[in-house]
């Protein structure tokens, strides 16, 4: 399989490397706006380079494309792939806002195109385990939840596209909390209403802090707190705690801790813990975390089978609408907004 890579920054190099390392897959072309990075890459990797992605698509005719560029380029680039019927993997988030993505969704559905968006936490063993347990209904009816996504990243004004609203769509909510929003709706179904607040401190144009309270269609209520300016979080960490009729479940990047009031489906009452070593599975090639490899392999399988994974553009569109509602509510001092 020949894959064109658009964007050779941090994520492009990662996805490109993982895919290139798989059997029978090669990265056939590199596209970027930085001539320096392209020159560097071409010298080391001997792969054809382009500054114009349309030229790459026309000349190389790849079997699939990976798009790992700043958010404002996602929809234009994905649309060109969709128009040519080329399956694509798109880094998250989908778009600057949901309205921008509407023509893309239409084109993808019309062509029945295989797509994937990079919400890779679904492939992390602990979050996958939590999903499995929740789908089994071990907690009974769900009542409330608390969730956070934090990292110690930004403690001064950031340079670059992530902190420019025009290029990124916003700050920590669209750039980071989208991982958590995707997990929440994956676990608990669609939210119905949100009341949110945001705050900026280190960034000028975008928010550094956000807090949102949700009401879900299935009756669950709970909150999400997000910032990239939290001390003592060396790595990006997600924590979700869900409270149900029959107990509670806590899931992080590192473990799932389940507490049941009464035994159910072979699980004992009291605590059952699934720590990282209990859940770990080796992968064909690991760069940067096994969930990236699992995700990228799922993309390859999707291209081969013609069947999109669950984490496709339509799913990412749902996440985008939740993000829109959060920003809408925050702009109205936390006034509740329907989703």
């Amino acid at each position, binding site marked *: 399989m020949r894959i064109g890579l658009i964007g050779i*920054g*941090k994520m492009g*190099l*990662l996805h*490109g*490397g*993982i895919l*290139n*390392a798989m059997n029978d897959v090669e*990265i056939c072309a590199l596209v970027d706006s*930085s*001539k*320096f*990075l*392209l*020159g*560097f890459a*071409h*010298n*080391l*990797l001997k792969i054809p380079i382009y500054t114009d992605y349309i030229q790459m698509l026309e000349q190389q005719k790849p079997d699939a494309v990976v798009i790992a560029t700043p958010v404002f380029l996602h929809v234009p680039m994905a649309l060109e792939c969709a128009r040519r019927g080329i399956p694509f993997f798109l880094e998250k988030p989908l778009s600057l806002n949901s309205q921008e993505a509407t023509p893309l969704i239409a084109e993808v559905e019309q062509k029945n195109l295989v797509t994937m968006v990079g919400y890779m936490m679904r492939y992390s063993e602990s979050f996958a385990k939590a999903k499995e347990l929740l789908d089994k209904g071990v907690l009974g009816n769900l009542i409330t939840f608390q969730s956070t996504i934090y*990292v*110690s*990243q*930004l403690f001064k004004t*950031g*340079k*670059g*596209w*992530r902190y420019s609203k025009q290029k990124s769509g916003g700050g920590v909510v669209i750039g980071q909390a989208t991982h958590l929003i995707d997990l929440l709706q994956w676990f608990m179904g669609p939210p119905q209403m949100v009341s949110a607040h945001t705050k900026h401190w280190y960034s000028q144009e975008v928010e550094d802090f956000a807090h949102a309270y949700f009401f879900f269609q299935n009756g669950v209520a709970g909150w999400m707190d997000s910032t990239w300016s939290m001390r*003592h*979080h*060396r*790595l990006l*960490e997600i924590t979700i705690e869900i409270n149900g009729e029959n107990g509670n479940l806590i899931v*992080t*990047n*590192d*473990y799932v801790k389940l507490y049941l009031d009464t035994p159910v489906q072979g699980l004992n009452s009291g605590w059952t813990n699934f*720590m*990282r*070593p209990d859940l*770990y599975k*080796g*992968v*064909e*090639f*690991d*760069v*940067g975390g*096994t969930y990236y490899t699992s995700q990228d392999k799922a993309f390859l399988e999707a291209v081969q089978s013609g069947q999109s994974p669950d984490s496709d553009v339509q799913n990412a569109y749902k996440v985008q609408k939740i993000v829109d509602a959060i920003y809408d509510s925050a702009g109205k001092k936390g006034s509740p907004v329907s989703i």
Partner: protein
Amino acid sequence: MLDKIILGHNQFFGVNHLDSQTGNVKEAYFNDISRILDIIRFSFQFGVHSMMMSTHERAIALSHTLQNEPVLGHELGIYLLVPYIAKYVKQANEKGLVNIIRDSLVGTSFQSKLGMFWRGGLGYLKKDIRGIITTLVDFEIAPFSKLNLKAIFLHDALTDLILSWEAIDVLQLYYEHIEKKYGVIPAFCTKNLPRLLKELKKIGIQNPLVMASINKIGYQVNPSLEAFEKALNDYDVQLLAMSTLAAGYLKPLEAYDYLYALPNIASVVVGVSRKDHAKETFQIIAQHLNK
């Protein structure tokens, strides 16, 4: 002469591959550098005269302290791991790859050429690319270069990224540069041992020093325990075993019964944060080494 036991450093700097909360608790405790030195000195009596150090910001402070220690500064061997990837991932988020490289090259001989590079002079870049790569490596090593360095390991994120792109000459460039400039053992850390050994053999690097996770339960072992064990049997390698206790999940007795039954185990790096744990772990390892 490769040390057979190397003191691990993760617990001193808030790194924990089991869970991050434990990492934070230990980091808070070891905020006081004298507590780190305490564990280091305590470990000496068990034949542990060296330690792993990644180029973490807090490790720089430790490096300065060690350089000023009359005895420890000379006697403690340092196995350096470059670069500290989490720092660069955050920098990539904050300012992008191009700015990382630009900022690292400021103050070097490439500074005057930076304008040319950004404008895309591919010809210039071709000549200078090896120099840029080695300069970036030197930039990372600089704060630690005056320590008693024994080996310098390339971080698994880079080793494996380079492997994934099949840019094996970069591994060779790294190897030759470390040997020539620093006169210490050039080494690699990896999460993909079988593939790395295959490629290193192809480029003629004999019996390399490689650090990789290996433990009885296969935690952080790729692609599988079976494939890893087979690679140890099939290739010449000096394996520096890490995560031998599966980030604290395994007890030393069973962990090292498993490890020392494998071939090509040249050394083990293990982190300890308490004296009783240090004593138990090092004594069990020593029993295996004395067989």
